[in-house]
């Protein structure tokens, strides 16, 4: 197993490098560069930059170099100094910008993920145990409603309903009056209230998917021979469900946790914009739009690494949870 993990980890290095090249290449692919979009932004505010001023900016940012030269300089900085580069728009090191938004991003991502699993797994189990019951249909339909409504629209509708019903659209992650205060129970409560809509919006899409997978898995597992064997031994139904069906059904789901975190990180960008969440998503979208390439590149590279690590974690989890795969790996390694 250890050799397997080691081998896979070593394999990650070229994969990540390839990804970083592609990521960087794609980011600079759209026509125009940071300076051209920056100039357009300034124009909207009534500022004009002369051609000479623009060229000076390009030189300062190194945008006059070909993209591969920029890439090499960037990756060299990362490898030798751990320097993720410089954000043009923020005039700050990328790391500083990323740090600023990391906490809230993690809160939202983790809350959504917890929501997804906490909601989906019991519902999936319920829907399987009570297959074709009213509850099954209700949960399935509600889940699908969440999935079928594009996130951005769902978010805006929920915000408006929140405004109509509670007089507060629940924008952002906390009420402004708490922003400057220290942590208090009231602030936590306020934050939790603000988390409801984002978590529901971001969560429902994957929740529905997960409910369906869970239900299917449970249905498969519950009719397995060994479940009947256990029942014939006199094992309690609840024990049986938990020890055999649920455990087996959870396997593929647990093993995809590595993947879903990335998905929740990147998939919620548009939602975060609509809901005014101070998370990385909108910052990155802005960075992409404005071709603030090191910021965008660092973030996308980070996501790529997360994906690769996620896959590895998934594979390890799978092996850890399933002795058969574990042995196969052992044999191969």
């Amino acid at each position: 197993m250890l050799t397997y993990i080691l081998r896979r980890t070593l394999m990650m290095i070229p994969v990540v490098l390839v990804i970083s090249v592609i990521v960087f290449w794609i980011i600079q692919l759209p026509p125009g560069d940071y300076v051209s979009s920056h100039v357009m932004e300034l124009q909207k505010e009534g500022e004009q930059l002369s051609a000479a001023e623009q060229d000076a900016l390009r030189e300062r940012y190194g945008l006059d170099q070909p993209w591969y030269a920029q890439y090499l300089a960037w990756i060299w900085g990362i490898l030798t100094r751990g320097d993720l580069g410089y954000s043009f728009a923020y005039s700050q090191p990328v790391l500083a910008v990323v740090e600023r938004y990391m906490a809230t991003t993690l809160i939202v991502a983790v809350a959504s993920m917890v929501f997804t699993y906490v909601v989906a797994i019991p519902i999936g189990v319920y829907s399987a145990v009570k297959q074709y019951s009213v509850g099954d249909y209700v949960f399935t339909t509600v889940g699908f409603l969440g999935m079928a409504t594009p996130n951005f629209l769902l978010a805006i509708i929920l915000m408006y309903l929140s405004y109509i019903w509670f007089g507060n659209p629940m924008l952002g992650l906390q009420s402004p009056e708490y922003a400057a205060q220290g942590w208090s129970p009231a602030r936590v409560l306020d934050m939790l209230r603000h988390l409801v809509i984002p978590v529901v919006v971001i969560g429902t899409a994957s929740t529905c998917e997960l409910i369906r997978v869970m239900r299917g898995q449970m249905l498969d597992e519950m009719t397995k021979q060994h479940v009947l064997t256990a029942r014939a031994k006199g094992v309690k139904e609840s024990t049986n469900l938990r020890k055999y069906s649920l455990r087996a059904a959870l396997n593929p789901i647990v093993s995809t946790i590595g993947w879903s975190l990335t998905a929740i990180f990147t998939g919620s960008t548009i939602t975060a914009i609509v809901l005014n969440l101070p998370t990385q998503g909108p910052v990155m979208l802005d960075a992409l739009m404005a071709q603030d390439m090191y910021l965008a590149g660092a973030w996308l590279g980070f996501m790529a690494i997360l994906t690769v690590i996620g896959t590895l974690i998934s594979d390890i989890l799978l092996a850890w949870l399933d002795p058969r795969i574990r042995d196969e790996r052992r044999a191969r390694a």
Partner: protein
Amino acid sequence: MAIPSRTRTPVEFRRRTALGALGGMGLLAVAGCANSSEGTAAEEVEAINQVEEIDSSEALTESPMLARRVEAGELPPITERMPELEDIMVEPVLEQIGVHGGTWNFPTRASQEGPWEIGKPTEEALFRFTPEGDGVEPNVAKGFDVNDDLTEYTIHLRKGMKWSDGHPFTSADVMMWWDSIMRPEVFGRSVYDAFWSTDPATGERAMAEFSAVDDHTVQIAFQHPRPMFLERVAIDAKWMFAPAHWMKEVLDEFIGEEAALAIAEERGYEDLEGWYESACYYYWFWPDRPMLRAWTPTAEPGPEQVTWERNPYYWKSDPEGNQLPYIDELSLETYQDPSHVELQVLDGHFDIGQFEFSSFTLLQENAEKGDYRVVQWETADWYSHGIQFNLEPADQTLRGLFHDERFREALSVAVDREALSEQLTLGLGAPQQSSIAEGRPFHQEGWAEKWASYDVDRANTLLDDLGLARSGDWRIRPDGEPLRLTLTQESEAPQAGQFEELLKHHLEEIGIQIDVQLVDGGRFGELNDSGQLQLTTRGAIGGIHPIFRPDTVVPLRAGTPWHNQYGTWYASEGASGVEPTGDVMELITVYRDMSAQTDPAQIDSYAEQIIQFHQKNLWALGYTGPVPRLFSVSNNLANVPTETTFADEFRDLGHGRPAQFTFVDPEAETA
């Protein structure tokens, strides 16, 4: 007003400026303004600008918030904080004397690209535009003198005025800005137009020279006459001073490059350019950077909320001696999408929101529930929906067409303006040509109606005359190619896609095939720079006065799609771009002549010529008249002007003098 006799008062000053002469033309229809053509300009201006004076230091009153700090010994008393009595700037009362206190919830864009959102309303320049927009008046400066040939400007500063950290504000601060910041161009901008004078004979430009006469007097000398210097300062230079004591601790000139870089890195910058752009240009985000603004930040911008607190050393008061601003705090809250501002205005959270016109119905219907009112400010654009022709497209056949008046007329009359008005402007944008509205300076009779009636037959006849024969649905160009135009718009623009779709619909009716192209800002800029645009609906042309900001109407530099190649040519002095011909070249010539004039009346007459060239040629077509800019204003907030002009030259919301905005009941206003 006790201003030394050799100094011209603002009244005198106004008489000497170009716009002073415009007063008689009925510049702006400002409510409450003694707007009559009979009275002299001087009387009128004096009536508008009732400059009062604080009688005694007894009258000075401060916010309870500051009074507490004074009591605690954290602050010197108000008399020591404000300028000498006669040098305190007194803001006239707009609606009522205000009450100190309250928090103004202020939406700001989350993106770092939006520094101006808070920058403009809090900006304090040496000179600022009058509420009516017909000229400038002293602001940070107390007054000025100028010699008769407009080559020497003497600017007087306010005695006893202090930076937000309590350090005196003197002519050294102006000299610091000029010598160590503007002239070395440390913040990435070239020395502004304002500081150049042009040799009327050769057209050569010469830079101004600054000198400090004494602690409160600065002299700026030009080689050639420099008319409109103060207006240009109000627009371009915005602030012409920097805290010398603070700058000496950060500029490499004073502390050496190594130490300066260390500071830059400490502040999160990798190079001096980035740091200096931030410290000298977008400086208002640094809590420790002394300023002259009414409010200063308490923290650097973060992901969520930042509070700006009142400047205890602010140098303005109301006529009763209440130190401004009335409002104690600004709570800057980030938003990512305009819908957030909408929602939080509806729920009564944001005290002032700025909106595109399309939000009008939503705002009005919920005004009572949200306890706000909707205020409309005019804009200086010539139209709200229109197109610009890139006069130098790569395709020479198209170039020929774009330069042909008949072609432009055809594209103008082929569109049903009445329909567009309903579909795009809630029926408010008048179905008319791109033009200057009645009541504004340089309004021309008949311009709004030119080529403005919907007449498909006429359009077809014009195109037929041009030899663009129809073959099936589409017209064929003389070279046998189908007539096919690309219409480009920036995808972020409000209503992007809708107007373009309607235009496509109307123009395809007359046989011109249209491809709509929505692109992001960077791509648009690139298309524009490389001359690949054909038609575009982005932006509008216009402006307060060609002399203030000629960018969109005279090709002086790149940017505006219709003349981009010409502007490039002019700005690069012929190195790149395309040399204009005909009327476009005339525009440049007229503008140059105008710039050399010292007589305001002459300036106006040249400006009028520029305007008339536009009326004649219509390089940009307008389909619906301008629509106002909307503000939602909390009903608890008073002294917000209701009818004025929204223009960048006037610093947008800043033109409403936010320092004298006041809550009727500050207690009700917390973040």
